[in-house]
């Protein structure tokens, strides 16, 4: 671990706090509560998909899930269709979204295993198919989520947005899984050295299958919550989460080469990514400058943190 900061996730929270302060400097301290609420809400969606992507990336070089955006869209669309805006169907919708996630995850790994192709290509091809399925189901779709779910996704009865609480609970579970459970240790072991893990008797296929399924199920859940939050499913609702899910994992201090992951960092990085955009907004920058600066920041972070470690995608 030499050369790497002892707790890399501290940096992402520090950066998020600095950006938060810099934004409030301009507004003169007003709107701090509103900005905090918005940051927690939008970061929550990135956290949910980011955790899934983190598990997959931890499996080691070449492991990545490109089907997250398509899965989110399909899960959100089908869930809304299943519920049809009626009260009392909430669990049915949630089940549909999670079921689609599970199906996608199993399909992804089936392709990886059966065709012996790199996960990038497997998840890329399934994402094409899922995306088409979403377009087909979504045609002319103008269904609103049930009132109870819309209220839940946008509400904050405890002072903290509900979706942030969900993401926080999931992050806690993910941390326990990763650091304290056999499954998490096995994921990290495969990521560090698959051969060694195999010799040590780790059931490689089972663990990888479960990881891809977990990632897709989380994507399904994120799609479900996002559709309820924004009052409907849209075809492009997942599009920004492909790059976002990878960015929050990397900025959060997980190793891109796998084998070492970091749950709190995903939260810090998600807050940071949202706050940086709202800071640039507050400063009056247009969309173009905002994107350029976002890109430069991602590269600066990886440039500062990534040097000298085992490289590979």
């Amino acid at each position: 671990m030499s050369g790497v900061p002892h707790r890399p996730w501290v940096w992402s929270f520090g950066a998020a706090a600095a950006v938060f302060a810099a934004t409030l400097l301009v507004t003169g301290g007003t709107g701090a509560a509103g900005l905090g609420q918005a940051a927690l809400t939008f970061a929550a969606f990135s956290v949910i998909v980011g955790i899934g992507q983190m598990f997959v990336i931890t499996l080691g070089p070449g492991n990545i899930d490109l089907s997250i955006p398509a899965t989110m869209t399909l899960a959100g669309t089908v869930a809304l269709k299943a519920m049809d805006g009626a009260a009392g169907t909430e669990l049915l919708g949630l089940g549909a979204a999670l079921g689609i996630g599970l199906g996608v995850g199993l399909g992804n790994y089936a392709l990886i295993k059966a065709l012996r192709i790199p996960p990038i290509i497997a998840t890329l091809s399934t994402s094409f198919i899922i995306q088409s399925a979403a377009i087909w189901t979504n045609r002319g779709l103008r269904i609103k989520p049930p009132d109870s779910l819309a209220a839940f996704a946008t509400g904050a009865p405890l002072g903290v947005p509900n979706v942030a609480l969900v993401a926080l609970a999931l992050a806690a579970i993910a941390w326990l899984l990763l650091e304290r459970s056999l499954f998490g240790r096995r994921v990290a072991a495969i990521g560090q050295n698959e051969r060694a893990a195999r010799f040590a008797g780790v059931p490689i296929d089972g663990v990888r299958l479960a990881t891809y399924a977990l990632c897709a199920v989380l994507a399904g859940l994120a799609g479900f919550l996002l559709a309820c939050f924004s009052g409907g499913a849209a075809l492009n609702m997942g599009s920004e989460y492909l790059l976002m899910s990878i960015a929050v994992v990397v900025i959060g201090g997980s190793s891109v080469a796998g084998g070492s992951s970091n749950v709190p960092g995903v939260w810090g990085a998600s807050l940071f990514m949202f706050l940086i955009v709202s800071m640039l907004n507050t400063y009056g920058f247009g969309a173009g400058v905002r994107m350029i600066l976002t890109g430069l920041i991602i590269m600066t972070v990886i440039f500062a943190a990534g040097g000298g470690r085992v490289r590979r995608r």
Partner: protein
Amino acid sequence: MRTDLLRVLVPAFSFALLLGVVFWLQPRTMSYLGLNLLFNLAVPIALATIAQMIVIALDDLDLSIGAFVSFCACVTATFLNDAPLVGAAILLGAIGVYALVGAVIWLRDLPSIVVSLGMSFVWSGLAVLILPSPGGAAPEWVRAVMTVRPPVLPMAIVASLAIAAVAHLVVMRSSFGTALRGVGGNARSMQRAGWSVLSLRAGAYALAGLFGVMAGVALVGLTTAADANIALRYTLLTIAGVILGGGEFNGGRVSAIGAVIGALTLTLAASFLTFLRLSNDWQIGAQGAILILVLAVRLVLNRRESYR
């Protein structure tokens, strides 16, 4: 040698099969005009796929190519049209940035996925700054080149053949290309053999940037206008094209001819459904299905090969 041949034969055969079915479904496509319509939009995709293939040959992955082609298209539709010298300088500078990225990835030992992810934001942002809303105009000469009507074979086919030939010569036949694939295979041994991995990688990225620029220019020649999101889907499409064309993610194993065939196959797969009178909703899905199908066929063939 046999596996190298197989690498090109499988995509070529699946492409021929798909084309045959399209001809059978709609015989009118079997004409000069029909072929041109089928493959017109494949030219920029083929150029971008070659760019992606060069990066994949280095054992890297370029997630910014779609944003980069969009950026180049925006520059072509604005600067290159209004002030050709400024436009050309910008595009040259962009190629320089590509070379720099390739060098930095090696120097700092960075993951190419994340660096190119960051670069995709930068290119998209620049494109939005240049063209906040769709517009611009294609320079006369670009339009003329892309709509020229050569005898016997339509422009789209001639261009695809030319791209495949040039890329094959540069990447597969030249000493630079061989060294480049060597870096993808084993960078350390190339270094020991006295090559400068740094300049090889910078050169390869510059070459990829050049093909990306040509893709942007060609795209504007076809569409006559640009917008900042015009080619974003190229990122995933080019990766699929390279793999479809027999490329592999490690060891510098790629095929230039295969990559062009892969790009053509994906273009054909998208319009295939129209001929079957199926809903357009499944266009992207058909590309995914073709990709899976070809990879499955290749697996079966490779297995048979290894049994001998």
